[in-house]
Every structure is written in C-alpha cells, then in structure tokens.
C-alpha cells in the first residue's frame, strides 16, 4: 500500500471529496442518490465530507430551482456535505445565483459549459471566474459525466475542451490583478490535463487543479506519470458518487509506483479542505459581509 492510502485508511487523512452529486441522472438509473446514503459511503471510504452538486440540474435550463433543491436537501447534513451549486453566467441575474452560493457557504460553484452550449471563450465565464476569484469560491468545471462511448443518443453535449479550460484560466481580469479564481476540473484524462496544464503560464497553472478519478493507473501508468510531471499539488481526491464506483481514488493511490509510495516520498494531494484555503487566500472579509453591500455584484470590493 502507498503511504497516502495508509494515511487515509488509518484515519490520519480525512480528505474532503470535491466531486459528488445528489439526485437522478437523466440517462440511466443510479442507485439511491440521496444525501443519507452519500454520508454512509463517504464514511466507509474515509472521506470526512464532500462538495455536493445537484445532478439533474446540470441538464436543466434554469439552474435556480435545482440550487434551491440542493440547499434544502443538504440542510440536515451540512456538517459533512457542502453545496456546490450551479451559476450559469449566460442567465439573467446570474450574480444572484453567486450571491446565494456565498450566503449558503458554498466552497465552490459548478459550471457546465458543454451542457449549456457555451462557446470558447464565453465572456460570461470569464466574468464569473473573476467573481469567483473575488469572493473566494472555487469554480468547478465538469469535463464529462460518462465515457463518450456509452452516452445516450440524446446526450450530445460532448466533453469540455482544453481550449475552454485554458481560456477561463488565462483571461480573467482577476488573474491580472493577482486574484484569479481557483479552478477545479473534474473528469479529465491525461491528455486533457496535459494539454491544459502545459498551455498555461506557471502563475495560471498555480490556480488550476484536476481530480484524478478518470486518469488510468497501470499498465499505462498515466496517474504515476502525471504525479511526476504535473505534480500531486495539482491533483485532488474525489468520489464521483453516485455515478461511478467511489473506490477508484483508493485503487489509484494503492497502485502508484513504489518510488511514489514510501511514507517519506508520498505526494500530498489536494482535497476540498485545502482547495477552500487556496480559493479564499485573497478574501479578507468573510462572505457574509458581501451580502450586506446590497448589490448585485456581490463580489465587488
């Protein structure tokens, strides 16, 4: 076993999962996608909590009712489950969606550029990224929900491209002001990560992170390669519940090559807790103060 997985299994590390959802998936049945079951699975797998989105909402036009449902469904479980609601920047009054997210203590907001049909680069996404940087909320981008080969014929959205990711990471005004948003990309494989990471400046790279649920271990050893090249400091743990088997991160860690497995050399991966700290590194006042400004531009200073 790797040192990292030993530390997780032994309770020394209790990472916060950055990618879980509740609710039904429109294209196939997913077993019992409810918060109470999620809590049990997280405890079993050694996660102390999770960032949780509302799965069906990704396929709706209006994100607001889904966000409302998400906040209500998670309320009894907020000690472990943090809402990661949607903010759709091509929707009127999207600033209200972000304000609600901040008010609810969301560590991240979700965007689904592929499902919303947003072109590269979409000015709203850049503006939203600026706002996320200012408010200390991470922007979570889902590359895909399923492998391309298995998608329902009605699921024609396609994957989020590396060009889209680079455009968001490069072009925010807040980046130029040194207050760029933390961007978390979930569902990317090795090629997409490499095409994104090596297409950014070191400063831009420092704000972009990837979960590793879709990166393959042996015999291709993509995961080990990315730990060596891109670095564990850009990789995060996730569960992908309820769509995928939650044990994948554990399996990948356990199969890391020997030289990345010793306790002394075990890489430090990110999780929800550490990403929150990074996202809020420039935020001087707590989010609630922003609400008191009484402005649509809740992220303004």
């Amino acid at each position: 076993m790797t040192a990292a997985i030993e530390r997780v299994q032994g309770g020394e590390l209790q990472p916060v999962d950055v990618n879980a959802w509740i609710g039904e998936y429109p294209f196939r049945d997913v077993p019992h996608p409810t918060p109470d079951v999620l809590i049990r699975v997280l405890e079993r797998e050694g996660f102390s909590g999770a960032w949780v989105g509302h799965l069906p909402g990704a396929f709706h036009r209006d994100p607001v009712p889904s966000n409302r449902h998400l906040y209500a469904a998670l309320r009894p479980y907020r000690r472990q489950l943090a809402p990661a609601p949607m903010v759709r920047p091509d929707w009127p009054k999207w600033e209200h969606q972000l304000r609600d997210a901040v008010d609810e203590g969301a560590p991240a907001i979700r965007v689904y550029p592929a499902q919303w049909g947003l072109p590269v680069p979409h000015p709203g996404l850049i503006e939203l990224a600026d706002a996320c940087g200012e408010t200390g909320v991470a922007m979570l981008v889902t590359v895909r929900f399923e492998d391309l080969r298995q998608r329902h014929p009605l699921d024609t959205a396609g994957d989020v491209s590396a060009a889209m990711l680079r455009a968001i990471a490069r072009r925010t005004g807040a980046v130029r002001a040194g207050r760029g948003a933390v961007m978390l990309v979930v569902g990317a494989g090795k090629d997409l990560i490499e095409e994104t990471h090596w297409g950014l400046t070191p400063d831009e790279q420092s704000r972009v992170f990837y979960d590793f649920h879709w990166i393959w271990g042996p015999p291709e050893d993509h995961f080990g390669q990315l730990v060596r090249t891109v670095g564990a400091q850009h990789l995060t743990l996730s569960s992908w519940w309820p769509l995928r088997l939650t044990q994948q991160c554990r399996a990948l860690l356990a199969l890391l090559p020997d030289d990345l497995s010793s306790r002394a050399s075990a890489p430090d991966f990110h999780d929800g807790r550490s990403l929150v700290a990074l996202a809020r590194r420039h935020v001087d006042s707590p989010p609630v103060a922003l609400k008191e400004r009484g402005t649509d531009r809740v992220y303004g200073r």
Partner: protein
Amino acid sequence: MQTPSTAALPLGGSLPLIDPHAHFHTPFTNRVDWARYNASRLAAGDRIGVLSHVASVLGTWGHTSPTYFSSPADQSQANRWMLDFAEAQGARVRAYVAVNPNFTQHAVAEIEYAMSRGAIGIKLAAGRRADDVLLDDVAQLAAEHGVPILQHIWQHRRRDWPNQDASDGIDLARMATRHPRVTFLLAHIGGGGDWAHTFPAVVDNPNIVMDLSGSGIDRGMIDEALRWIGASRILWAADLTLCTALTKLFALDHLGASEAEIAQMRWQNAVRIFPAGAFDAALAASKSPLPISEVAQ
C-alpha cells in the same frame, strides 16, 4: 473502508484471483515502451493478487495492420510471441490464441498450433460479427478442444464504430445458440457502450458468461449483472486498466454478494470454463488462507 490486516496481503484481498482478460505488447507494435508496459502489468497484478493472467496479443496493435483486422502474418507473429511469453512466465501467464476469422484456414491452423503449445482459449476480437457463419469453424474447434472463446463485445452496438466490426450481446447470443457446447466469455461489460442492454440480451444463453473488465466503473453495473446473470456467470477481469479492476474488487464487498459468490467471480468460474488443470500450478502458489487442496478443487 476495507483495510487489509497486514501490508503483505494483496491489495485485492487474500482469496485467489484469476484475470481471464489480459493483453501484452510486443517488440512488433508501435510502442517503444512495450517492455515497460508488460512489466507494469505483471507488477500491478502481483500487488493486486492476480495469480494468473490469461492473455492475448492482437496482431501488431495497429502498427502494420489494424488491431481488429490483423493480417495473418501479424497474427501468427503475435501468437508465437504470446506463447513464448506464457512459457517463460510459467503459471503466472496463460495464453489465448487470437485469430482473424476472415482468414479461415489460417485461423484454424493457428488454433491447432497454439493448442499444441498450451493455449487455453481462443480470442475473437472484431474482425467479423459474432453471429457470422465464418466463425462456425472456430467455434467447432473450441468445442473439440474444450476451450472457451473470449469475444470482444461492444455493449449495445447502435451504429458502426471505426476500425472494427463490433458485435454486441444479441450477436453473440445467436452464435452461442448455434454452438451450445462452447462457452463464450463476453468481454468487458465496462468496456464501452450500454451495459444494461447486454444482460437481457444473453440471459437465456447459459453458455455465455461475461467478464467485468474495462475502464467503466458505473455504479449499478455489477449490481445489475448479478441480478440478471448471477455470480456463476460473471468473471472478474481487468483488460487494459488494472486500476478500475482493483476498484471493482473493492466494490464486490459492498454489493450484497456472498463470500461464495465473490469466490466464483474471482477465480472459481475461470477454473470451471477453462480446460481442467489450467490454473493448478498458479493456485498451488497462492497465499490464500484456504487449504491448497480446497483451492485446487
């Protein structure tokens, strides 16, 4: 979280484990890292606890002829490399003979040659639909030699995909109906397509068993396979991604399967469908807490 009691135990648990869907690369493919790839597979298999990899090589993996339409020369070369490799690895690696059924005489000769050298199964990929009469000679030979056919399957083929004449569960069910004495191992329900379509397509063909391999790790997939097909017709396997295979091993403990059913999926079904004694040596080397006599049975 399932925590092994000692660090020395395999990651996949202490019960025996056989991978009936493995592949290796050769010096004749277009990968310069072919030896690293093979070493990585074997090392990861050791860590997981795989006692035996049953493997094939599909031509030159596209280098000099397409992976799923390998030329006779490429496939002969690949099979000889595979048989040599299995011989060199002993019980740890067993060989399928892979054939392109479009070249029937060549396929028949390859099967006879490989069986004489210890191959324990036949691999059919996607050179021809599984229900094509061209495959009948191959199936007949499988029956004569008492070996299973591992058939590459696209779960619910709704259209043609590039570079292959893929088959799905319905195609394979037709073939299995024509050849009831042959066991067909339906490949990788996690390997792409819609797995939910496959289970009802083959449920009435008891001579079709299926493997869990593939990169797909959808929640609900193994649960539905157990409901439709039952543990006696499911074999754990890896194919190209050992990480997702280990994930599925971890998950088996949480799906409501009994210990006996898990043992079936991990190794007992493989022992049943392959020729008698195919895994005796590998099982004898197992660190399983079960008595060796019981394991061997």
